[in-house]
C-alpha cells in the first residue's frame, strides 16, 4: 500500500485494505445447480482521516452499500482488512466489536425502514445507551434525548411521538440523532438523502455538515448524486463494478477527472448553468449497461464500455496509480 497522504503525519481513523465481498449465488435444482459468485466488492482500499468526508460514488449496483455493510460487519467480508485505529474490524471478537461499534456508526438510506415503528422517538434515540449503559447514566438519558433532538433540528416534545408521525426528512434527523448519540468518530452514511425530496435533501446535508464541524466526525458518504457529494466531501472515490477506479481530492476529481468512467459520470451530472463551458456536445454517453458483477469482463472491468480501451485492458487489470492526492486505475490516464 502506498501512503495516500503526503504531508500529513496523522494516522488514519479507518484504513480499508483490499476489501473483498463475494456473494454465492446458487440457482436451479440440486441436479443442475450452478454456483455463481457475485463479486460485489472486489478489492477496495482507502483511508479515512479524522474529521474528513470521503465521498463514495458510483452507479447502482457497483458495491457502495456492500462496502458500508461489510465495514459495519452487517455482512462478513470474504477477504481484506479494515483497521479502525489499527484494530481490524473484521477479526475483532464480539466484545471488541461492540467497542468499535460505539465509535463507528451508520445512517441508513431509508428513513422509513430504519426506525422501529413501535418505539417512541425517545426510545429509539436512547437505544444506543441501553446497549452501552456506561455511555449515559439512566437519569440523564431523558434530558440528553431532548438535547439531541434540538441538535438535529427537531423539538424537545417530539420525544414522545412515534416515527410514523414524522415526514421522511424528520425521520432521517431522528436516525442522525441516534447515530451521534454515542459520539462516534466515524459515521458511515449509506445514501442518507437519496430517499428524500430535493428541498429536504439540502437541509439534511447541511445538518450533517454542521454536525461534522461541531463534533469532528469523519464521514464515509455514499451517494449516487454527484452534486450532493461535491457539496459534502473533501475527497472522493469513484467505484465501478466493485472496485475503486479513481480516488482523490474533491477539486482534483471534479476539475481534472482522469478515468474515462469518472468523466462519463461527471458529464452526466445535470446542471442549471447553461452558459458554462460545459456544452451539450461534451456529454459522454456510455454504451450498454454495466456488466453483471457475477460475470465481469477480463482485465479492466470498464473496458467494454470504454472508448479508449486498448489491447492491454483485456489482459491485465489496472491498479490505482498516481500521486498521493489523486490516483487512478487506468492504462490510459489522460493528463489534462
Amino acid at each position, binding site marked *: 500500500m502506498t501512503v495516500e497522504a503526503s504531508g500529513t503525519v496523522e494516522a488514519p481513523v479507518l484504513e480499508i485494505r483490499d476489501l473483498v465481498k463475494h456473494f454465492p449465488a446458487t440457482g436451479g435444482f440440486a441436479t443442475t445447480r450452478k454456483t455463481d459468485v457475485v463479486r460485489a466488492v472486489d478489492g477496495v482500499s482507502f483511508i479515512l482521516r479524522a474529521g474528513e468526508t470521503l465521498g463514495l460514488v458510483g452507479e447502482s449496483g457497483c458495491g457502495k452499500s456492500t462496502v458500508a455493510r461489510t465495514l459495519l460487519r*452487517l455482512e462478513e467480508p470474504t477477504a481484506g482488512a479494515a483497521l479502525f485505529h489499527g484494530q481490524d474490524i473484521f477479526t475483532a471478537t464480539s466484545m471488541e466489536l461492540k467497542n468499535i461499534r460505539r465509535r463507528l456508526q451508520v445512517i*441508513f438510506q431509508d428513513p422509513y425502514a430504519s426506525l422501529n415503528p413501535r418505539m417512541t422517538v425517545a426510545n429509539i434515540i436512547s437505544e444506543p445507551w441501553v446497549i*452501552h449503559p456506561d455511555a449515559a447514566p439512566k437519569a440523564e438519558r431523558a434530558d440528553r434525548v431532548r438535547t439531541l433532538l434540538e441538535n438535529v433540528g*427537531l423539538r424537545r416534545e417530539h420525544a414522545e*411521538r412515534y416515527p*410514523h408521525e414524522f415526514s421522511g426528512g424528520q425521520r432521517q434527523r431522528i436516525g442522525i440523532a441516534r447515530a451521534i448519540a454515542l459520539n462516534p468518530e466515524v459515521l458511515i452514511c449509506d445514501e442518507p438523502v437519496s430517499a428524500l425530496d430535493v428541498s429536504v435533501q439540502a437541509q439534511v446535508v447541511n445538518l450533517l455538515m454542521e454536525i461534522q464541524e461541531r463534533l469532528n466526525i469523519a464521514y464515509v458518504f455514499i451517494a449516487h448524486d454527484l452534486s450532493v457529494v461535491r457539496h459534502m466531501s473533501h475527497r472522493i472515490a469513484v467505484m465501478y463494478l466493485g472496485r475503486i477506479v479513481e480516488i482523490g481530492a474533491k477539486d482534483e476529481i471534479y476539475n481534472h477527472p482522469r478515468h474515462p468512467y469518472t468523466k462519463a459520470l461527471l458529464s452526466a451530472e445535470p446542471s442549471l448553468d447553461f452558459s458554462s463551458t460545459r456544452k451539450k456536445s461534451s456529454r459522454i454517453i456510455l454504451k450498454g449497461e454495466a456488466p453483471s458483477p457475477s460475470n465481469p469482463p477480463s482485465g479492466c472491468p470498464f473496458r467494454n464500455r470504454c472508448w479508449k480501451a486498448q489491447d492491454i485492458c483485456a489482459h491485465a487489470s489496472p491498479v490505482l496509480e498516481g500521486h498521493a492526492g489523486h490516483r487512478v486505475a487506468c492504462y490510459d490516464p489522460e493528463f489534462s
Partner: protein
Amino acid sequence: MSRLTRGYVTNELNIMTTAEQESLIIRRGSPWWRMLLRDRFALVAALWLFVLTLCFLFGPLLFEDAATKLNLRARNLPPGSLEHGWLMYLGGDALGRPMLARLIVASRNTLAIALSAVFVAMIVGGILGMIAGYVGRSVGHVIMRFADILQSFPSLLLAVVVLYILEPNVTNLVIVLAITRLPIYLRVTRAEVLEIRERVFVDAARALGGSRYHILRRHITPVVAPTLLTILTVDFSIVMLAESSLSFLGIGIQPPEITWGLMVAAGRNYLSQAWWLAFLPGLAIMMATLSGNILSNWLRVVSDPEQRWRLEDSSGKKSGQTDA
C-alpha cells in the same frame, strides 16, 4: 393548527407540507380504558371475560354443592323456567343437576387447563421459534424437524400414548395439550422472525452493538407477540375440545370433575331429546373464545402506534399518519 409554531428549526427552509403540520399536532396517549370504552365489541368482550374470571375465582366455592345435587324431577328440564329456582333457569342435565351451576363450576377446570396449555405452548413455541429463526441455521433445522415430527404424529394418539404412560392428572394433561399445540406457535414465530430480522431497524440495532438477546427482546418480540396472542385465542377453543375428547376416552378429567368440554361430550347422547345439554356448554366455549379473540384484536390495535388513532378520541378522526 394554531398550536403549531413555524420556524422552529434553525437553518430550516420552513417548507412544511400540510401533512407535516398535521403530524405535529397529534396528541399523545389516551389511557387504555378510554380506548376500551371506544370499542364497544372489545368492551363487551372484556366484561364477559371479567364475568368468567369471577366464575373462575368464586364459582366452585359458591355452587359446588348445587352443581352436584341430583334432582330427578328436573331431568332434562328445558331452559327458560324459574319453577325450580334460578339455578335451574338454563335447564337441568340428564341427572337433573342445574346447568347454570354446572357451567359456572366447570369454568374453573376448563379455563385453568385450556389457558395453561395454550400459554405454555405459546411461550415454549415462541422461544423455540425465535431460536430457530434467529440464532442459527443448524439449530433451526433441528427445531423445525422436531416440529415436523410433532405435527405429523396424530395429536390425539400422542396424547393417549403419553397419558397412558404417565399418570392422567391435570398437570400431565396440560403438558400433553401444550405439546400438541406447540408447532403452530413455533412455525408462526419463526416465519415472523425470518422476516423481521431483515428489516433495516434490526440492522441499525446490530450496528449499534446490540446483542442477539437485545434484538430479540426489544425489536422482535413486540412485533411477534400480538400475532401469537391472536392465535392463542383461537387455539383456546381447540384445546378445550381436545381436552373433552381425552376425557371422553377416559384419560382426561374424570367425573365428578366437570369441564365444558366434558359437558358437551356428555350432552351429545341427548341431542335429540335435550339439545341444550350440549349446546349451552358449547356456547360457553364459543363465547369465551370469541371474547378472547376480540380482545386480542383490540390489544393488537392498541399496541401498534400506527393503528392506535382508530381508538383514540381526538375529535374522532385520524390526524396522524403522514405519507410524505
